[in-house]
């Protein structure tokens, strides 16, 4: 080899107690390349990155930069070497604007005794002009869209010359258009000889964007090479270690629920799980007109969002309706309005009845909601996994119907049954949900609605940042809930997921419902065009277009 690679990780090992998070991880990065790091959740990607960023010290193995062995003592030292990290959970200070966030931890320019705000802004504007000229610089991060926050993080990373930018799941919170923007930036960085280490569960993105790949499984590098020499299927096989399996084999922890193995495949098939004795039937077969599928379960005629945009649609039993739009188009806001969590004008009807106010009124009528941000809006980390599962309908777990004190045994039984149905992999039902992988946390959010008949399920980003195996299982669960006669309304930024699951797709653009696509009109191109506001006339909504 004539020239040593820009950065090489050799046989990194890292233990946490008895768990081997890294067990011989190798990675070779060429200068200016776009390198994909893939693997199921729990495969060791995050540990690898934290080792590279100096947050963890490896127990064994070497890191070489330009052929020289180096040690990275902390984030400062990684920064000094030109390594930049954009972590999966966006790490901006919410009340700082883009400029202040970009300057955190740097030497501020001064004019006399004062910080020179103008010079700070000018420098940030200069960086932003290169990659994100339309990024608002004076808005607090809390009020930026997820896409803008991502841009703000990238601007922060590029304030000083960088040799490598590591992006952990950068597009998982972005919609198609914003992801495209990000891809352009990645290509631009690469052209400027800055390498990008790109971590993503979206394999189509990996194949499109990256030159080379490294696959981690159980903390070990199991494959690496040029992306052009492999395929999506090949990557999946390497990640899972089997023929495209749905098993969570990447998980280091043991299954909590022993029946997981036997009941495993049953989780996608409604009939068999209904037979599970401990588990209440999720949805008693609805009678009369419901089964015929003609009368809508959910009818909405609403004004929502700050602009008060008006939308009107209906969903029939058994339908999975996809809700698509660019970030900021109002998907989450619409779901929250239907859920009664944010105020809106207009009406919704569930089985022809107007529900009571707020989420409690919705829950009483059989509506369920899985929020977008599982960490902030979903899980209570101070409660155990089983307590989280019981949270949405605590009163069902009373030992005595008249006394509002939940029975541990009933909660435990529900947790066991739900865990088995969802193939939840956890160290124990009494542990914190923070100990779960992203995919299992997401399953938990679905699981907490499973004790009651579900009439309407609202889901916001069902599989963001979730590995391939868990993604398949979550999709199976959603299909099963729909097959049981519920109406499912699913907002997603993942267009593969949208097309795979939806029987019909509603597209929002700037808070307005601009298209309703189904049957032959439901194509990737049509969805994207509508989301960008380019919908041809015949796709413009009105209601009477449904099959």
């Amino acid at each position, binding site marked *: 080899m004539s020239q040593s690679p820009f950065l090489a990780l050799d046989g990194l090992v890292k233990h946490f107690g008895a768990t081997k998070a890294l067990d011989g991880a190798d990675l070779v990065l060429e200068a200016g390349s776009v390198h994909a790091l893939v693997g199921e959740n729990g495969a060791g990607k995050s540990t690898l990155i934290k080792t590279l960023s*100096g947050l963890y010290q490896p127990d064994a193995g070497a890191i070489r930069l330009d052929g020289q062995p180096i040690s990275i003592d902390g984030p400062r030292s990684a920064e000094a070497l030109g390594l930049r990290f954009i972590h999966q959970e966006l790490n901006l200070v919410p*009340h700082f604007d883009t400029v202040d966030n970009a300057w955190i931890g740097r030497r501020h320019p001064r004019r006399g005794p004062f910080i020179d705000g103008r010079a700070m802004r000018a420098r940030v504007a200069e960086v932003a002009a290169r990659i994100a000229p339309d990024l608002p610089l004076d808005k607090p991060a809390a009020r930026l869209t997820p896409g803008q926050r991502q841009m703000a993080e990238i601007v922060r990373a590029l304030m000083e010359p960088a040799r490598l930018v590591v992006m952990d799941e950068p597009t998982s919170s972005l919609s198609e258009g914003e992801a495209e923007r990000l891809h352009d930036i990645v290509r631009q960085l690469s052209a400027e000889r800055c390498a990008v280490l790109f971590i993503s569960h979206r394999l189509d993105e990996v194949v499109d964007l990256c030159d080379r790949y490294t696959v981690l499984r159980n903390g070990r590098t199991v494959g690496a090479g040029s992306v052009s020499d492999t395929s999506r299927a090949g990557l999946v096989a390497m990640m899972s270690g089997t023929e495209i399996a749905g098993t969570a084999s990447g998980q280091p922890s043991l299954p909590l629920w022993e029946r997981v193995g036997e009941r495993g495949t049953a989780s996608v098939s409604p009939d068999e799980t209904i037979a599970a004795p401990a588990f209440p039937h999720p949805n008693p077969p609805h009678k009369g007109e419901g089964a015929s599928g003609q009368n809508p379960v959910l009818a909405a005629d609403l004004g929502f969002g700050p602009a008060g945009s008006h939308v009107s649609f209906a969903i029939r039993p058994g339908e999975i309706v996809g809700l698509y739009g660019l970030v900021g188009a109002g998907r989450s806001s619409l779901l929250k309005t239907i859920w009664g969590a944010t105020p809106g004008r207009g009406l919704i009807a569930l089985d022809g009845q107007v529900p009571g106010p707020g989420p409690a009124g919705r829950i009483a009528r059989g509506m369920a909601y899985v929020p977008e941000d599982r960490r902030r809006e979903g899980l209570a980390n101070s409660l155990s996994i089983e307590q989280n599962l019981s949270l949405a309908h605590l009163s069902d777990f009373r030992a005595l119907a008249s006394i509002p004190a939940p029975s541990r045994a009933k909660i435990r039984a529900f947790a066991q049954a739900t865990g088995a149905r969802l193939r939840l992999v956890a160290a124990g039902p009494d542990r914190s949900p923070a100990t779960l992988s992203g995919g299992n946390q997401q399953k938990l959010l679905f699981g907490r609605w499973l004790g009651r008949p579900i009439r309407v399920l609202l889901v916001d980003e069902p599989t963001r940042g979730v590995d391939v195996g868990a993604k398949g299982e979550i999709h199976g669960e959603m299909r099963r809930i729909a097959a049981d006669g519920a109406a499912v309304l699913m907002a997603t930024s993942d267009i593969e997921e949208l097309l795979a699951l939806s029987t019909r797709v509603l597209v929002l653009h700037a808070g307005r419902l601009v298209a309703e696509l189904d049957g032959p009109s439901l194509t990737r191109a049509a969805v994207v065009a509508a989301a960008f506001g380019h919908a041809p006339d015949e796709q413009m909504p009105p209601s009477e277009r449904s099959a």
Partner: protein
Amino acid sequence: MILLRRYGTLFALALIVLVFTIASPQAFGTMSNLINITQQMSLLAIVAIGATLVMVLGEFDLSVSAVVSFAGIAAAALFAAGVPVPVVMIAVLVAAVAMGAISGFLVARYRVPSFIATLAFGTVIGGLTFWISNGATMFSGIPAGFRDLGRGTLAGVPVPTLWLIGTAIVFWLLLDQTEFGRRLYAIGGNREAARLVGLPVRRDMVVAFALCAALAGLAGLLLTARLGSAHPTGGGGYLLQAYAAVFLGMTAFREGEPSVPGTLVGAAIIAVISNGLTILGVPSFLQDLLTGAIILAAVLVRNFGRDGD
């Protein structure tokens, strides 16, 4: 409405001053009384500025009043032993800094909730103070030169007011115009993010707690200087009032974050209410009642129009 919400606290201060001026133009609305108010608020405001630093981190230091009392008693005890003024002042401030650093270390290193850590440590300091003083007021041997640091005027401005002005300028610059200040806001806003970009989170937290205690120590020294005596619970009243000032100040400016100018406005509101009601002869129980109600009202106005939960 937006203006009212944004600057409501300033309006409230102006309104309160206006009401008292109309109610009592001869006694309240005079220049000399307004100057007097700045003197009355000075020690409270100095303690509250210290509390602001810790609040910026999103933490509480509940030991401030214990440190005020300790500093006053420790100074009096050292004077009684004949120690010269500069040595006493430096020794007391160093002790206060050490106390704050210990609280900060417990919070930053061992992640003890600051509420508990400083409540417990404040109780320890209180015990120490009683031990030194035997529970009695100390007044012997306090030199006149030291007393002048807390009384009288310089160029027409009361000396405590000058201490407050100096403290406010230094700490406003520190919080608003230094990287240290920016780091404190960053840590308070997202501690994990601060850690991931390599900020010295623990060290900055320890320094903030130490500075908070240093200001409480300074207030204790000035209290003893002003009164010419020290009582082991002399600082007791400052704790709640200081945090009331910080909270009122958070409603005054800037995205609801604690800031030195905000805290000054908060302390001024508390001082004006107390001064005005005293002039009007309102009984003290009613003063407490009104002060509490006004603080609640200010915070409510700020949250008005937001979502319930």
